[in-house]
């Protein structure tokens, strides 16, 4: 049993719903009680979808349990097929139905329909949402393509030459409720097209079962979100010899690396290598003098595997930040995240527990947090600027404007989205600094809420001596006076460092001299 307050991922059947809702001509009959219909609102409210997810809930009740719940399943399948006429039917169960073992998938297969039926077995008590999405996409692809395995030749990534046409690729992995998938797809298609590469199809987002059947018309697969598409890409590679890409094109370096990888796989010469570095404004914005203050900014990163790894690389190599914490809730990606963390001399935090993440965040004392909705809340409590880089997300993370994370425009968006909260943080300190001016309106609050002013409260406290509660250290008047002279933007850090130093040296009272001692010690 695991105590959970907020959860990063939903159950695996929600992952299956993400696949079904992303696609066309598919219906998902879910053996589930009425409460499970809450999942619809993820799509209609967070994604603002104007269509209901294509899901029928069998809605069994306690009184059905003594009777024939299998009949109820069949009745719902029959009605759903008649009403929605799907080209492929997904059948599965949620956590409670898994316990009563009606085998809805087998029941559906025995009902004599001529459409393909995918029997989804998604263990609700051990797996989670992303796994469920990945498994569903894989099972669906397998069901629709398995007959072609025996008579299809291995697909050579070079065959486009023989065919006398531009190379074709599939873009795999984007789904609803993924982070900025809608716009990433447009950006990546644009980039590929500029390089003379056509998109055969995008899946699951916007694809139909017919599209899945023509996956093998492409030469290679772009595995855009490994959490969702890697299992499918691997199956296509094993059975059809289709190569797939490993680089995730988030950030300038990775986007260039991605373009290189695609060209290499297709044996397509890369002729515009020089131009690529000027496609995004990020490199220049990051280099321009205004960005000097970004140097060494301490940043804490937590999210799904794909976005956390990419964020760490951009933070360090493209913006000149210092990564002081890195972690993920995606256990499937733990190995990769650990490797990335190791390169940064960090130990990766792999956890489902947002309180553990908050604790780690507190300890790392970052100046910027890049995380999920959960970290946004934690950062707000701690008064640290934050930008959301990964699911789980809220409605405001599905913006109306075009705002991908991938490719050139993605890099522009990332520069803006990460740097603006930092500037807002600076603004916060300016407000603090000018608060004694007569124009200042008391109670002025910016986006950070109340906690941002903790150091200020400490300084303004009327008590002559304040005890640092945890360690019993006392700030003398001279120490406090000296602290006020420290520039506002490093004051918090100086306070923490001085206290750390005092503890280390067993100094019970912090005077102005202690401040200087500590400064010398840490420099």
């Amino acid at each position, binding site marked *: *049993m*695991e*105590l*959970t*307050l*907020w*959860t990063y*991922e*939903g*159950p695996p*059947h*929600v992952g299956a719903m993400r696949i079904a809702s992303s696609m066309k001509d598919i219906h998902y009959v879910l053996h589930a*009680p*009425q*409460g*499970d*219909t*809450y*999942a*619809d*609102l*993820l799509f*209609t*409210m967070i994604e*603002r*979808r*104007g*269509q*209901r997810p294509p899901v*029928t*809930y*069998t*809605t*069994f*009740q*306690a009184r059905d*349990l003594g009777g024939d719940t299998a009949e109820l399943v069949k009745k*719902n399948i029959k*009605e759903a097929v008649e*009403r929605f006429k799907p080209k492929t039917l997904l059948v599965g169960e*949620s*956590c*409670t139905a898994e*316990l*009563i073992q009606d085998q809805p998938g087998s029941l559906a297969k025995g009902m004599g329909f001529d459409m393909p039926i995918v029997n989804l077995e998604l*263990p*609700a*008590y*051990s797996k*989670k949402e992303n796994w469920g999405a990945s498994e569903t996409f894989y099972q669906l692809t397998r069901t629709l393509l398995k007959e072609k395995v025996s008579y299809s030749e291995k697909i050579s990534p070079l065959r486009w030459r023989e065919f006398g046409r531009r190379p074709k690729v599939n873009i795999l992995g984007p789904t609803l409720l993924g982070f900025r998938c809608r716009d990433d797809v447009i950006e990546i298609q644009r980039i590929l097209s500029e390089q003379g590469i056509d998109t055969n199809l995008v899946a699951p987002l916007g694809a139909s079962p017919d599209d899945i059947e023509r996956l093998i018309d492409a030469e290679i697969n772009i595995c855009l979100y490994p959490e969702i598409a890697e299992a499918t890409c691997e199956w296509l590679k094993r059975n059809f010899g289709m190569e797939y890409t490993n680089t995730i094109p988030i950030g300038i370096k990775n986007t260039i690396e991605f373009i290189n990888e695609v060209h290499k796989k297709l044996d397509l010469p890369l002729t515009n290598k020089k131009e690529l570095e000027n496609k995004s404004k990020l490199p220049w914005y990051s280099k321009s003098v205004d960005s000097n203050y970004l140097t060494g900014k301490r940043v804490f990163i937590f999210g799904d595997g794909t976005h956390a790894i990419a964020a760490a690389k951009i933070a360090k190599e493209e913006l000149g930040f210092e990564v002081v914490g890195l972690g993920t809730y995606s256990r499937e990606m733990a190995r990769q995240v650990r490797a990335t963390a190791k390169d940064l001399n960090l130990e990766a935090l792999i956890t489902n527990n947002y*309180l553990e993440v908050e604790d780690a965040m507190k300890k790392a004392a970052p100046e910027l947090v890049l995380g999920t*909705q*959960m970290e946004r*809340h934690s950062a*707000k*409590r701690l008064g640290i600027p934050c930008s959301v880089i990964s699911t789980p997300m*809220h409605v405001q993370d599905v913006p109306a404007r075009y705002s991908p994370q991938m490719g050139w425009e993605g890099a522009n968006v990332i520069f803006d989205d990460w740097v603006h909260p930092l500037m807002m943080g600076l603004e916060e300190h300016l407000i603090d600094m000018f608060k004694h001016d007569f124009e200042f309106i008391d109670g002025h609050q910016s986006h950070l809420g109340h906690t941002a002013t903790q150091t200020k409260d400490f300084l303004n406290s009327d008590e002559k001596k304040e005890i640092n509660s945890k360690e019993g250290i006392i700030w003398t008047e001279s120490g406090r006076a000296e602290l006020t002279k420290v520039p506002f933007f490093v004051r918090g850090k100086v306070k923490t460092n001085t206290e750390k130093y005092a503890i280390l040296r067993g100094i019970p009272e912090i005077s102005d001299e202690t401040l200087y001692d500590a400064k010398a010690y840490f420099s």
Partner: protein
Amino acid sequence: MSKVEFNKETGPREVFCGLTSIVWLHRRMPDAFFLVVGSRTCAHLIQSAAGVMIFAEPRFGTAILEEKDLAGLADAHEELDRVVNDLIARRPEIKTLFLVGSCPSEVIKLDLATVAEKLNKKFLGQVRFVNYSGSGIETTFTQGEDGALKALIPLMNSSDEEKLLLVGTLANNVEDRFKKIFRNLGISNIESFPPRQSTELPKIGKNTKVLLTQPYLSDTVRCLKHRGCEVISAPFPLGIEGSSEWFLAAAKAFKINELKVHEIISPLINRAKLALESHKEILKGKRLFLLPESQLEISLARFLHNECEMDLIEVGTPYLNKDLMKEEINLLPDNTKIVEGQHVEKQLDRVRESNPDLVVCGMGLANPLEAEGISTKWSIEMVFSPIHGIDQAADLAGLFSKPLKRNQILTSKTLVTY
């Protein structure tokens, strides 16, 4: 009883389960913690239904069952014990801990009553444990509150003191208003259930007169009757009419002269009628379709028809307790079509066929209907907003007039320029 048409429907539904009521119950009783014993789905449901996540460590959580818990129930009990210990160590301020059963815990027959009993002995004098089921195989949305309140009744001491007991969660400001009005009427001993602190449970007995504020408390009412309480029969305090009848019924139970009631509430009524006017202008003659969800549908239909002059196409309700709803049904216009239960597809067919001006529905259906050009009001807002009482009648109407007003603005010439 008016000639109301009763229908029943079964099939796939689109409603929340009883766990959802934790979202407002935990705010009502800040010293309580709600621990759902369930699956990841339960945890995900509550956090999604909460709409916006709350900027704090929440006072609810889920003990998520894992494969090993399903294998042996004895171990599951031990595991739950461990989780509770951790939780109480972390949150020592918790005074009452609700162990909330879910669909999976019900199906595997996890005996939360026994667990609660054991924990009560262990934490005697520190934390009280109660249990109830919020499972979707037994309860719908607001019914979760019914379960939670019912679970608290055995903890309530007996007293033969005469008192008015308001039963059902109310917004604090509304509760204060009600108490003030009752005191003006001459009823001085008024208490609320649930109370604002879980430890301050009212005492009950044969001179307790129960006045329901919410229509979804069937089991609670039964248990209160069992404890000797008298239940005052009244419509629910939504809108001017319902609230007035509600005050009158309470006054009657306390043998207070009807004239005195009118004297006190008349100014409120007049004021509320004035405030209602602008909303009525928008709502008048508009056709309303209520899908089942919050169990408030019948009272809302009564208010929106009788006071806002809307036409009722269909009034859905997740379940119908005719006894509890008697006074409400009496106030409905003749030939009102009430549909108990749901077949969401067939019901949506009827929505489309009847071409309503406004549909009251859950959040899963609202945007899809809007995309089809049908205005909606999501029902979950009814359980979060202060809508009870005469003073709030206009605010209540405002929840329904706003989408229509918005529609007018957006489809007027100001926005569409082509």
